[in-house]
Every structure is written in structure tokens, then in C-alpha cells.
């Protein structure tokens, strides 16, 4: 049903449709509205779940893990500092192959302290072994949340649904909330083969010596690689039920004939897409909206870049001392092509800096001048730097 809803409200509804039995909640800007909305749904009897208001994000993730281990579908949400505080648990959940879904409302990381939107937080835990999906808008976030439970429970991998904090969570727009019947048709009742049961006692989380560790880690890695197909399939299945095109591993739009491509991830895709469509053919670009970052969709990416002479990776994080994160992985993936595009890499919008429509033009101008071969910050304002840094 179509409604005008704030992003976080919509996410709460999407989660409620999946009927988790346990929700662990700890507040942090900008995800707080999600758990507040869920608390209200529980309090009003619209959702039959135990809402555990924990004393830190470390416990939020642990409570969710314990709940799934005991056989219940669970949910939690966090951002930024909270994500890092639960980092130890994130690796543990993934290594234990426990199906959990979590929303990360992307926010910059301290220091410096910032409550505003960038993707440094989820990028910082990209190696935790979770599936990571990045949403381009709130409708995508709703659909991805529902798909996440299917993906998680089918692959026995936890799924992190990343959505830009404030930019998506606090934006009110017209959204379609699926019907409960649609979700029932799509998401089977929760089943986890290795849940803890006194009738079939098992030991979970044992010590593993060098004799067996490599194979354990390998199976985890393989599971993530195989999840690529599951993400695709689930996306198609949900499209058929919802009547909406739904993400997959990545989406290609803009000018299919252009020999310049822009790859981006998250909500800035919307602004870029509008700018690209407003440009005449011949002076525009192909837009690749990356949705799956883990597993990294190498094959799909190479196909999407076929025929491109130049590819600009525009991201919202960076690895200090190295450069772009998405850019580095894209470069590596494309280097296997016989005739790879020239790759440029920029970050933009760090710490919530607004990403205006002109960004696309600025980007074209920058690469025409040869900037971006080495990673650069597209929206750096040098007059704000200390004099020595000029």
C-alpha cells in the first residue's frame, strides 16, 4: 500500500512484516527512529516480539545472536560507533554462520565526531563475513530488508542492509509498503538447522585448531561467493511478487551507449541518475548502481562495464593512507579484462557534506583534467585546509 512515510518508519514496517520474534535495540543517531518505531509496533500489539532494550550495541548484537541460536528470527539496527562497538560480535556471527538481518544506517566514524552520512562505518567491517547490500533509496531499503531475511536464511549468512543515514532514514517520501500476504508468500517460517535444542544437543562456537581452521574459513568464503546467485534469484522472485524492479547485484541505467561510466553505491545514485538523464546523449554516462558489495560481484561488474573507455568510481568513504575502498576493489576486478576501462576514483560527501546535482558535471570536468587517476576527494574545499596543507 502506498503511503507517505519517513524512511525509518518504513524500515520498521518492513521488519515487522518479516515477523522477527526478538528485536534488540540500542539507540544511536540516525537509526534510532527505526527501533523507536518498532517499539511502538510491539507496544501496540501490531508485532508479537520480545523487544530487548540492551545496554550497548555490543549486547544488541549478542542478544540477537543468542536469539537466532535459540531458534528465533531476530533483528537489530545500528550506525557508526555502534557498529564498531559490536564489531567483535559481527565477525563471530558470520563465522558461526548464523542467519541474522541488521540495518546499518550509514554514518561517519569518529574521530572527528560526526552524526552525518557517509559509508565509512559499514566499509570498515566489510571483512566481517556478512553479506552487505547498499540501498539506493527508501523503496529499495524496504524491499532489500524483506529479501535480506530470505537471503540470510537460505545461505546461513548474516545480512547487513546498508542505507544512508539521515539521507534516507529521515527523508519522508511516497513508499509502497508490501502486504503481509506478499511477504508470507515469499518468506517461509524461520528454520535454522543448527539451532540449540535439548532434544538434539550440539556444541556451537568451539575452538578450532590449525588442523581444521583453513577449511572452516574456506567454507565461509565459498558460502559468500555462492550467495551471489542467491541474491540475484531472491531479487527476481521478489520483483515478481512486488511488481517492482528490485536491485539484484547491481543496476545499470543512464546512457547505454556512453563510453564513460559512473559507478556508485548508496543514495547519491538518485541525484547522479537525475543529473545524467538531464544531459544530452553524447555528453552523458552509463550509471552503475552497485547494490551487493559483499560478496563482491566481479562477474556482474565486468559485464556492466563492457565497452566502457572510462569508469569513474564515486564513493562515500575512504581508507586513510590508501584511498578509495570501492575504487580499489573495482580496479582489481576490472584489471582481469582484456581491455579494461581507465578507472578514476573519487570520494564525495564525507561526514554528510551535501552532494548536489552539479556533482556529475564536476566529475566529468575533473576526469577531463586528468584528476582521479590517483584517488581524490571530489568536493574538497582547499580554502578550509590549514595554511600548511595548501
Amino acid at each position, binding site marked *: 500500500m502506498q503511503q507517505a512515510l519517513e524512511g525509518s518508519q518504513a524500515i520498521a514496517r518492513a521488519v515487522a512484516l518479516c515477523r522477527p*520474534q*526478538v528485536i*534488540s535495540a540500542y539507540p544511536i543517531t540516525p537509526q534510532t527512529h527505526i527501533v523507536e518505531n518498532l517499539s511502538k509496533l510491539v507496544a501496540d500489539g501490531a508485532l*508479537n*516480539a*520480545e523487544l*530487548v*532494550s*540492551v*545496554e*550497548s550495541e*555490543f*549486547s544488541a548484537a*549478542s*542478544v*540477537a*545472536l*543468542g*536469539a*537466532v*541460536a*535459540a*531458534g*528465533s528470527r*531476530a533483528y537489530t539496527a545500528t550506525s557508526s560507533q555502534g557498529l564498531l562497538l559490536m564489531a*567483535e*560480535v559481527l565477525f*563471530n556471527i558470520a563465522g*558461526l554462520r548464523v542467519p541474522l538481518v541488521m540495518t546499518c544506517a550509514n554514518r561517519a566514524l569518529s574521530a572527528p565526531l560526526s552524526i552525518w552520512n557517509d559509508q565509512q562505518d559499514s566499509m570498515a567491517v566489510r571483512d566481517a563475513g556478512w553479506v552487505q547490500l547498499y540501498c539506493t533509496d527508501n523503496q529499495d531499503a524496504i524491499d532489500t530488508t524483506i529479501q535480506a531475511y530470505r537471503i540470510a536464511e537460505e545461505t546461513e549468512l548474516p545480512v547487513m542492509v546498508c542505507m544512508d543515514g539521515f539521507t534516507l532514514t529521515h527523508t519522508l517520501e511516497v513508499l509502497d509498503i508490501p502486504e503481509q500476504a506478499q511477504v508470507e508468500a515469499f518468506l517461509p517460517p524461520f528454520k535454522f538447522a543448527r539451532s*540449540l*535444542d*535439548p*532434544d*538434539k*544437543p*550440539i*556444541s*556451537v*562456537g*568451539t*575452538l*578450532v*585448531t590449525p588442523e*581444521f581452521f583453513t577449511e572452516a574459513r574456506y567454507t565461509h568464503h565459498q558460502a559468500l561467493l555462492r550467495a551471489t546467485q542467491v541474491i540475484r534469484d531472491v531479487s527476481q522472485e521478489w520483483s515478481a511478487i512486488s511488481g517492482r524492479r528490485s536491485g539484484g547485484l547491481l543496476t545499470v541505467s543512464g546512457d547505454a551507449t556512453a563510453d564513460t561510466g559512473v559507478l556508485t553505491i548508496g543514495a547519491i545514485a538518485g541525484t547522479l541518475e537525475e543529473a545524467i538523464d538531464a544531459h544530452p546523449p553524447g555528453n552523458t554516462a552509463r550509471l552503475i548502481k552497485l547494490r551487493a558489495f559483499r560478496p563482491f560481484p566481479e562477474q556482474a561488474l565486468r559485464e556492466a562495464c563492457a565497452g566502457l573507455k572510462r569508469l569513474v568510481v564515486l564513493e562515500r568513504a575512504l581508507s586513510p593512507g590508501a584511498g578509495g575502498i570501492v575504487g580499489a576493489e573495482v580496479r582489481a576486478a576490472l584489471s582481469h579484462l582484456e581491455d579494461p576501462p581507465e578507472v578514476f576514483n573519487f570520494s564525495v560527501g564525507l561526514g554528510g557534506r551535501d552532494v548536489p546535482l552539479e556533482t556529475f558535471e564536476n566529475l566529468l570536468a575533473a576526469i577531463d583534467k586528468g584528476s582521479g587517476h590517483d584517488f581524490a576527494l571530489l568536493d574538497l574545499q582547499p580554502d578550509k585546509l590549514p595554511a600548511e596543507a595548501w
Partner: protein
Amino acid sequence: MDTVIPVEELRRQQSRFSGFEAGHRACLGCGEALAARLVTEAAGPDVIYANATGCLEVFTTAWPDSAWRVPWMHSLFANAAAIGAGMEAALKVQGKPTQVIAMGGDGGTFDIGFQALSGALERGHNMLYVCYDNEAYMNTGIQRSSSMPHAAATTTSPAGRERMGKRHLKKDIVSIVAAHHIPYAATASVAYPSDIHKKVRRAMAVDGPAFLHIHTPCPLGWGHDGAITIEVARLAVQTGLFPVIELERGNLVDVLPVRRPRPVKDYLERQTRFRHLFTDDARAREELEHLQAIADHNIDRYRLEAGGTDICDSDSADTVRRGGARWA
């Protein structure tokens, strides 16, 4: 060829419920292993366990072997109470009667796991938390924890020219826990196994959070022969240094009586972790006096000389008092 025995049949064959099997890799005379066996015996089969990182999970589960015959999970060092809380929430929504026991050593309870414990207690989860207290970080090779008694020596608080071991007092965890207004908190010792059984059953019967703090000597870390673990544990209780008490919503309701307290020297001299206290050093004498004062204070505070109803610690005495049935 191995014969697979169904769990129900296994349980029927056992003379008492065994959730914790022999063949694990604990040190000779490990107090914690004994305590874990006693806890799982008394708790019975319909329980799932959350275990913090530490000696217990390491010596019981080197994949592919496990000593646990109960559903058991180890996650991290600091989160046993939070894992347990999540399990409890799930079982509650599922409407299952299965109970939850979270377990940790003193490190995972007093220090790194303290926050999760406090949170779980405050939220009132229907869960038993058991702390196996061997008074140091033993799994990593005997380092200081806040549970260590004053003046004991470890690798990170050694006795030397300037220092006499740990300078700070043992954290009074059971008082802190009781301050959360939980229905049941108790201390126990491996020297009194039936008392442990009794307290586990009492804790499981309570609706809400329960906490059991079990004193478990570590022969390697404390510096005594594994053959005298029980004796050492008993001396800790009989000197008054480790009072065995029960609290309901913060009120003292029962104690294990210490009618003829032993001098602390009897306990301390059996452990090399306190050997620096038996030199001619004036500071050593001072520390001994301090430890004796702590013991005397405990005896006064908990009225150990006068109190208590139990004069026998045995299964049969306990069974008779309860009116029969070894376990449900």
C-alpha cells in the same frame, strides 16, 4: 563401528543426568571442571548454555570433540550474559519451557563481561548466570583480574621488591549483583558439592535472574597440588575468606556456617601464589594481618559463626530435605 545411542536412551541409562562428559582436557584437579559437572547435573537436560571464552570452553571443545551433552554455545569473552539474554527472549516468545544458563569465569564476569551481566540482570531475564571464580585470567596464563584476592601474585601482579602482589581488594561481585534487586544470588564452593546442586536447583526455580558465584581453585594458577583442590576450597570457606551465602532480593537469607574458623594462614600457606607473604618482610606480615582482617570481617558481616541451618553437605541430606526426587 560406533553405535549411536539416542539422547533419550542415554539419559535413561545414566544414574544421574550427565551434561558434562569425562575426557576433556582440563588440568588435574581443576575446580572449574568439577563445578561445571555439578551445575549441569543439577540443572538437568532441558537447558541451553551460553559460555564465555575461558578455560572451560577451551578445554571442553576442541573441534571436533565436545564434552557437552547439552545444547551449548560459545560466542565471545564479554557477552555470555547477553547471549543468554537473547536465548531467553527467543524461548519466551516460542513458549518453550527450556531454560537458559549463562556461564563465565571471573574475567568474563567481573571485568570484561560485567556490562553485559549488569544489563541482563537489570532487564530481569529469566536466566541463571554462573560464575566460575578461579580468581585470575587463567586461560591466558594466570593474569590479574578484579576477582583476585588482595596480595595474591600473578604474572601481571607479581610480588617483587616494590610490590606485594595485587594491591586492590577482591571485587564484591555478589553484593553488586544483589544490588540489581534480583530474586536470588548466592555463593558456593566446590568443597560443598551438594550445596552447589541445591543452589542450582533453587536458582532455576526462581522466576527472573539468578546468580551463582562458585569458588573454584586452580591448581596451576594458585600453586598447589591438584590432589588437594577440595581441601584448598574448603579452607577458603572455613577461614571466612570465601563466605558461602544466599541472598534474596539483596537480603541475606542463609549462610554455610563456619563454627570454628581456621586462621587464614592455613589457607594461604598451601598456595605458592601467596608464598611471598611468608617471608620475614614487615610488609608481608602486614598483608597477612590485612587478609586475616578481611576474613574476620566476613565472619562478622555474614554472621557465619552463628548462622546456617545446614550441618551436613550431602546429596542424601539435601534430597531428604527437599522431599525426594534427585532431579526433575
